[in-house]
């Protein structure tokens, strides 16, 4: 069987029909991006690895709950997200972050179709992103490091698309204190 020609969705369907065979191909495809995502959310790399190992085990166990008509990537990211959050909760807390008080401008309209110059912003975000509260950190990591669109982030985090936009805006507002993001220039 040549798995290379199969899309993620077809591979998941194959796994459903063949009692989980093909999980190793799925792991090859998703190990790096999921580990990168987990390491951005969790400061301890060992915990991130544990979270991703648990993600693959949960993926294997629950593959029959995946709806093959829907994209596979948000589904597995959702599992990885939950496992990573579980790891964060079961270990020492991350930096307590709500020390940054920024009152977002509620009048600002967020045009979710307008994109910030991601490469420039990613470079500036890298060093300071750990200072953000987890709810802002997760959306910014997914958007600017994992290149997920608003729909996918909504599916991964199970929050409305508008909330994704609001959290990204507020996260960037908080980061503005630490770094010179003139993100309005990019809009």
């Amino acid at each position: 069987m040549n798995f290379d020609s199969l899309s993620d969705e077809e591979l998941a369907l194959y796994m459903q029909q063949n009692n989980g065979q093909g999980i190793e191909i799925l792991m090859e495809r998703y190990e790096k991006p999921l580990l990168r995502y987990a390491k951005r959310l969790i400061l301890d790399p060992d915990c991130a690895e544990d979270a991703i190992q648990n993600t693959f085990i949960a993926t294997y166990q629950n593959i029959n709950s995946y709806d093959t008509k829907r994209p596979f990537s948000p589904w597995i990211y959702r599992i990885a997200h939950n496992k990573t959050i579980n790891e964060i909760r079961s270990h020492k807390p991350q930096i307590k972050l709500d020390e940054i008080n920024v009152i977002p401008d509620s009048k600002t309209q967020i045009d979710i179709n307008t994109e910030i110059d991601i490469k420039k912003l990613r470079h500036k975000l890298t060093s300071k992103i750990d200072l953000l509260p987890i709810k802002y950190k997760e959306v910014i990591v997914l958007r600017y490091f994992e290149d997920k669109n608003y729909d996918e982030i909504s599916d991964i985090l199970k929050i409305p698309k508008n909330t994704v936009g609001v959290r990204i805006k507020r996260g960037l507002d908080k980061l503005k204190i630490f770094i010179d993001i003139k993100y309005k220039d990019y809009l």
Partner: protein
Amino acid sequence: MTKDIKKETLKKISDEKIKIKSKSYFQLLNILLYGISVVLILTGIYIFNLMFYLPSRSQRMLPQESTTNYLSLFPWPLLIAGSMIVGLIIFVYRNYEGGYKKHLAITAGIIFFIILFGGALVAGANLNEELERKPHFKRFYQWNEDNFVPRGHQRMNPDRLPSPMQ
């Protein structure tokens, strides 16, 4: 040193004999979720129906107090219980695929309106009177009135008066 996640995961699956959960397991979970939703919706409608019905029942049985302000007989605890049921329905609904994508306030408003409207419809129908003809239900309605309708326990209920023979 970083671990070989792929190798260790495959080893764990093999060593701990981790099995794939069957499709029927997830279908059963879905049925359970739907079942819980239906039960919650019906419970919510019935509670709101009681909320509308009990004050009118009290007024009906107290003709001398027919001018009593409706609000003074309003069973507020039932409104709180009904609202909690609505909260539970919203929680379950948001676990459905796509349920989380809807705006929370709009979802809550629609569900609250459906339950409230359903309760008013049932209260307007003959269902409560029919049920009250059965002894068990009569006691149930009486208990609700005694506990949830303000001043409900004070009224002179002919059913509860001591018999002249006693």
